């Protein structure tokens, strides 16, 4: 399974993250390592660096991990989580500038084809209006 790039979904809401993960699984089954998290460390709406790090670990692939985020804090916390990873892993995790639901589904579909991390990121980011 680890031959495909992994996908991590980070939302302020655990329900959104879980729902997005279900949509991804419906598209690509279990061919893509998947991690997701939502909610702040107190269980409210928000994001948690600790939970993001755990989700990256869960979705870990030697070919890299693409993170899809919803709003500001999710991005900032994801970047922080990447910096706190062991050095060997840091360069192989990227945050995609893409809408979380559509981006996750597109990224996972691309990842399931065996695409590289850069190709997965590009596919997700094609959804972002310029």
């Amino acid at each position, binding site marked *: 399974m680890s031959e495909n790039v992994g996908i991590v979904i980070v939302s302020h809401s655990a329900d959104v993250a879980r729902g997005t993960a279900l949509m991804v699984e419906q598209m690509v089954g279990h061919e893509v390592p998947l991690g997701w998290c939502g909610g702040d460390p*107190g269980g409210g709406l928000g994001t948690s*660096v600790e939970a993001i790090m755990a989700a990256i670990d869960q979705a870990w692939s030697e070919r890299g991990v693409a993170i899809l985020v919803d709003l500001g804090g999710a991005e*900032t916390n994801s970047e922080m989580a990447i910096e706190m990873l062991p050095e060997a892993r840091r360069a192989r995790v990227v945050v995609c500038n893409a809408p979380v639901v559509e981006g996750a589904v597109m990224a996972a579909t691309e990842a399931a084809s065996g695409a590289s991390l850069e190709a997965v990121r590009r596919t997700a980011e094609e959804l972002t209006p310029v």
Partner: protein
Amino acid sequence: MMIDRQARKLLFETVARRVIASTDELTDLDRAIGDGDHGANMRRGFEAVLAAVDELAAKNLGESLKGVGTTLVMKVGGASGPLYGTLFMSLGKTLDDEVTCERVADAFAAAIEAVKARGKSDVGQKTMLDVLFPVLAVLREGGTELPVRLKAVAKAAAEETIPMRAIRGRASFLGERSVGHMDPGARSSALIVDAVADVMEGLA
């Protein structure tokens, strides 16, 4: 000036208690132009600092500041976690127990750059940076009555965010409607500066 274990503990406790005591004020400010979670997030982070204060203060100033930063990163939850976490971690990287005004100013300047990079933001965008930069300018001047001047500049700088239009963060979604409200991050930064200055003055 030597920042010993007792001084570190007093410093962290004072900052944490002030932030926690201002939870409602920060929540109200954030409710006006953000998502209303700044008060609760900062309280959660600084309650964690308070709970671990003996352990944190036992290390030297650099390591203890890094510890405070890591705690905030892990516990705050919003974007303010990585932003304040980065500020404290960066200060910890450069400061030793023996501090001078000049050393603190240099460390603070580096920490502000780290916060700018983390938030992809700059001065004039209605953020905590609009307080941190004027505070740095006063630190650079040094001189007499420093704590009093630091408190005054932090308070005035936070108030100066009221007419600004937000360009970064959730408040930027509101565009022109963000005008007329103080930035919650600017306010929490001013609170922290105020608490540190009170400790310097022996008022805490």
